């Protein structure tokens, strides 16, 4: 099912879910939605329980609940799914639609060029900025040897 030379489906789904909704909407504007769309599961918002382990080891504990919105759409023979953080239904719809269209061989390449690539660069940029900000606030601790 992997038709992309760069990204596999789980990777582009993850990218679409993490993208900025406004950027995704702007990028998808250029693509007309397929004529034979069926919304299998209209966008619906709910809660997921996040579980974690301290330090990645130890027993699991309930970390907290997170709002998520999911959506599934069928375009032609392809079914697109999306789960996105937050309650932005438009984001979930666009991500599901993009997932369905990316599975179509004819639309895959233009979508990769005009949607996936810019979103990936934007995400990398945001991560870079966040890590710079974190690095700037790093505090070094020194121990002064007492002269005795």
């Amino acid at each position, binding site marked *: 099912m992997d038709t992309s030379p760069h990204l596999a489906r789980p990777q582009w789904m993850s990218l679409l879910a993490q993208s900025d909704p406004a950027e995704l909407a702007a990028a998808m504007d250029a693509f007309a939605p397929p004529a034979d769309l069926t919304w*299998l599961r*209209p966008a619906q918002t709910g809660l997921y329980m996040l579980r974690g382990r301290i330090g990645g080891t130890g027993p699991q504990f309930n970390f907290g609940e997170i709002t998520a919105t999911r959506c599934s759409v069928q375009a032609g023979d392809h079914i697109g799914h999306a789960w996105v953080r937050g309650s932005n239904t438009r984001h979930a719809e666009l991500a599901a639609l993009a997932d369905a269209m990316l599975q179509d061989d004819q639309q895959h390449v233009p979508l990769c060029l005009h949607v996936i690539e810019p979103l990936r660069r934007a995400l990398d940029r945001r991560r870079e900025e966040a890590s710079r900000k974190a690095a700037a606030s790093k505090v070094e601790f020194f121990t002064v040897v007492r002269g005795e």
Partner: protein
Amino acid sequence: MLAAFAHPVFDSQRSFRELLQAMARPAAPRALPVLPPAPAPIAPAAMAILLTLCDATTTVWLQQPEQEAVRHLQFHTGLKRVDKPQDADFALVTDPFSMPPLHAFARGDLRYPDRSASLIMQVSAFRTEGQARFAGPGIRTSETLAIDGLPGDFWQQRTALAPQLPLGIDVYFVAGQQVVGLPRTTRLLEG
């Protein structure tokens, strides 16, 4: 694949209300408010019941588990499918003439009579005339109803289960847009 309820919350709430009412007033046909799309061999009315009552915690037995129908149900409800009628909370009978005998389904046990199967049976039509009269809780005197499209010995099999009350099997019959509830307490009157 097909879509399910257009408004999952409101549509299932409205359907649930009708199903409650159908069980509270047995043997009286009621119209289901919403008919979702359904893949063959499942009727839209049966699909409305399954979408309303089933989720990941219910087990369902399908008489004709066609691949498309199973995929559709699992996507929209997340239900657990079982191969043996005995293990099912809900059973969908799409062809009553080749269905297993009624005693093959779970009737609950004496401590938990609610752990019995609810059958959803697709029949051809309901007629509120004829010889068949029903009585029991929820019916003032008697209710006249004929159900077309059932095997000849169905009522004998059902009557044979009656002495086991409170154990038993509840049935939803569907035909077209209509649903009829027949809980285990409803008796078919002779003659």
